[in-house]
């Protein structure tokens, strides 16, 4: 189900394979209801999360981007998420200068057992994006617009 009446927005989630991806699975198995705007890309670690994935997503039509990984000190590779935290915080702080609301991008930590927490994170983030509405579309040519309409 969608948390909101009307149209879904496009939210891209980049999830660490070892925790948040499992956490989302746990939430699913427990049949916890979640909004359906999120599309998930699985990463081996948030350390793989190039901040450019976020910019590219927003530039090509996403309305929000969520990154979720292991809690600090709990990284499967010991320190991947520590590096990620620095990069992602920096990227987030650059967004307003580009004209994007900073709240379109969040990063958070959810472990594989935290199905409930995952539900809360997705619901809150989806609410936040719906509050902001669709993101501004970069260089929207008539062709791109037509293509996007066609793709639904």
């Amino acid at each position, binding site marked *: 189900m969608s948390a909101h009446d009307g149209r879904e927005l496009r939210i891209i989630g980049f999830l660490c394979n070892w925790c948040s991806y499992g956490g989302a699975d746990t939430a699913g198995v427990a049949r916890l209801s979640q909004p359906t705007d999120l599309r998930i890309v699985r990463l081996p670690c948030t350390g793989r999360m190039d901040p450019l994935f976020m910019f*590219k997503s927003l*530039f090509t039509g996403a309305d929000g981007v969520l990154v979720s990984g292991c809690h600090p000190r709990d990284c499967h590779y010991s320190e991947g998420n520590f590096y990620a*935290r*620095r990069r992602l915080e920096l990227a987030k*702080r650059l967004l307003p200068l580009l*004209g994007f*609301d900073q709240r379109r991008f969040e990063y958070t930590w959810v472990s594989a057992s935290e199905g409930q927490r995952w539900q809360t994170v997705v619901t809150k983030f989806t609410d936040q994006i719906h509050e902001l509405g669709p993101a501004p579309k*970069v*260089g929207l040519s008539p062709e791109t617009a037509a293509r996007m309409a066609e793709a639904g």
Partner: protein
Amino acid sequence: MSMLEELKTKIKDELPNLDWVIGWKQGFDPLQATPHFMRTEQDVDQLIYNPLCAQNLATFLPGMKDKKVGILVKGCDSRTIVELLQENLITRENLVIFGLPCSGAVDVSKVRKEIDSPGRITEVTFDGGHIRISTKQGSSSLALADVLLPKCRTNPYAMPVIADHVFGQEEKAGPCGQGESPALEALEAMSLEQRFDYWQYHMDRCIRCYACRNACPMCVCRDHCIADTRDPHWLSQETDVQQKWMFQLIHVMHLAGRCTECGECERACPMDIPILSLRQKLNREIKDLFDYEAGVDPEAVPPLLTFKVEEANINERGW
């Protein structure tokens, strides 16, 4: 002996031990300086040093790692050398650094726009904080402070932070570090919507020549830039705003914690797009988050190559 003569003598002393020394000479007209690769004493005689010597010559260094090279640097250029050393991209032993005081570097394209006659410039002179440009039709004088490159106000180092030979003294009259970048100030005063429009408008005239990238001394991937790959397909060949603006983000993110704000990206841009402000903003955030400034301490570890288990300034969201 004037500073320039002193400098020339020193270069001539060092020249026998070096493959070449990189400096500046006059380009196609008296307003234009151009990089000058000096191999002989006659080459050294053509050397100039004045506020027109804007190019950051350190850009050439990573490509000549195995050569013994002498290089002339202004205060801000010297930070590039420190950063390159930090990243082990150049060899200190192969380098002789001639450090020069900077009283600001002129934005030549701004000067060409300011002077009314687009015709031939016959002479350029400097006196008392002014630049005087003479043409056949007459001459005009501009306050140096009004035609400096945007990097000059924000970069606080008038004297080199690293050098083997230092010439001249810090000229306090210089504008170094005297304020914030006007472009960044203007951007920060805008609403989100205005900023979005601002970038769409400015990026539209980008011609994708990649002068910004190739002039950048920290763009060390050179011929292997991800902007050029087809797989992964980061950018398409289309010349729309999306590709052009996304490239700037690629450049900016790859410079995070490394950019020394030498401003070569913006100076090199043939379409005069104000892209330095993006790098300046990133540096402000890095200073704020990690209390770090690139290219000052050769021993320092760049902030994105390290971490702290408890980050002092990152306030994570509670959910």
